[in-house]
């Protein structure tokens, strides 16, 4: 059985559907990961221990285990405690929380990396603690965290492929639907890989633009 890519156009609609849903899952999970990541970082840095410790425990747990396992936990675990979520939502929550933990680590490090003297100088000039944080620390931290957060986003796009195991019809599962009708795994997985590569290039170009904007504020 040789290779025959001529069957691909006939089933292209599965792949387009996959591209659309991969994009939706990635964007939704990225938004969750961004805001939850900042929240976790602030909690770990500034909240009282009683609140910070559970978050740290959660981060430690999610950094030490594979995403795939976490997706199974969230999908089947929510079902067990009586919350029936559709696979799509479970996938977005799982991806989002997984990368929130990595983002939190980046944001925490980005804030800590701002020199302590900056805060002291701001306070001695009469700024309140909050003013010092929002006007002095944050603008510098943003420059620290933008490149690593971008790397996490690129990793998220690729890892969104994993939600296919829950049955979400994103790009991998779209290719699988085409394969189940044509029995041509090589062709469709290669085409899916090319589409991921294209999405990745678009995302990287977008991130370069953002980085240049952030760098220009220096």
């Amino acid at each position, binding site marked *: 059985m*040789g290779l025959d890519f001529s069957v691909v156009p006939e089933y292209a609609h599965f792949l387009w559907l996959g591209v659309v849903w991969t994009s939706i899952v990635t964007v939704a999970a990225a938004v969750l990961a961004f805001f939850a990541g900042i929240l976790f970082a602030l909690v770990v840095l500034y909240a009282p221990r009683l609140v910070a410790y559970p978050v740290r425990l959660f981060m430690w747990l999610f950094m*030490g285990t594979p995403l795939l396992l976490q997706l*199974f936990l969230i999908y089947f675990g929510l079902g*067990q405690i009586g919350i029936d979520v559709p696979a799509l939502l479970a996938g977005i929550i799982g991806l989002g929380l997984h990368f929130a933990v990595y983002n939190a680590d980046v944001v925490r490090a980005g804030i800590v990396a701002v020199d302590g003297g900056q805060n002291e100088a701001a306070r001695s000039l009469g700024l309140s603690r909050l003013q010092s944080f929002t006007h002095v620390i944050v603008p510098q931290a943003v420059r620290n965290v933008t490149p690593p957060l971008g790397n996490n986003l690129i990793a998220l796009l690729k890892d969104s492929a994993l939600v296919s195991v829950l049955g979400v019809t994103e790009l*991998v599962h779209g290719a699988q639907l085409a394969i189940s009708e044509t029995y041509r795994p090589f062709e469709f997985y290669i085409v899916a*890989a090319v589409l*991921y590569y294209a999405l990745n290039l678009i995302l990287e170009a977008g991130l370069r633009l953002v980085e240049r904007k952030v760098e220009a504020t220096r």
Partner: protein
Amino acid sequence: MDFDLMLRVTPFFVAAAWVTVQISALSLALGLAMGAIGAALRLARSRLLRVLGTAYVSIFRGTPCLIQLFVLYFGGPQVGINLDPFAAGVIGLGLNIGAYMTESIRGALVAVERGQTEAARSLGLSRFQALREVVLPQAARLMIRPLGVNSVALIKGSALVSTISVVELTYTAQRYIGSTYKPFEMFAIAAVLYMIIVYGAARAVAWLDARYAIE
């Protein structure tokens, strides 16, 4: 929490964790070898070799590892590559992490100051001698941390081979979640075993780094 059930299934999880360790170790060895080859290509004098090295890194880092495994395992037979799940898992994971290793090794090599090579060359060492005696010993220490980070990521990434039916830790957890409907219990066992392996490896890397790194 059903502790009785957890106690009964734990031996199966431990056996599966051993498979995870084996897969990780073998694909790490392949990944390091690919990383060394990839870095040599990326830094080669021949343009063709450099393009080859860049293509390798770009393709394997630009697409999901899951798709790479599927192309190899499900698509392989169409082009005459018939691998059992374990072999496909090791090769797929190894080729994927090798692309990341390539960048870490290349990064460490170019981070060694150029003057070092120039000084070695002006002292009469050949290009190869300068690389082996002067650049590599310094680069090796710079590599420990990034290669270690990749290795720890590889252990977690090895869960992906469960999708091509390698009976490792995640596969086993998934099977028992399906048959017992106790996701939290099964996750807890698998999580403890993963964290022993992952944080154990991370500690080993930190030790190596502290022992040999410059600074």
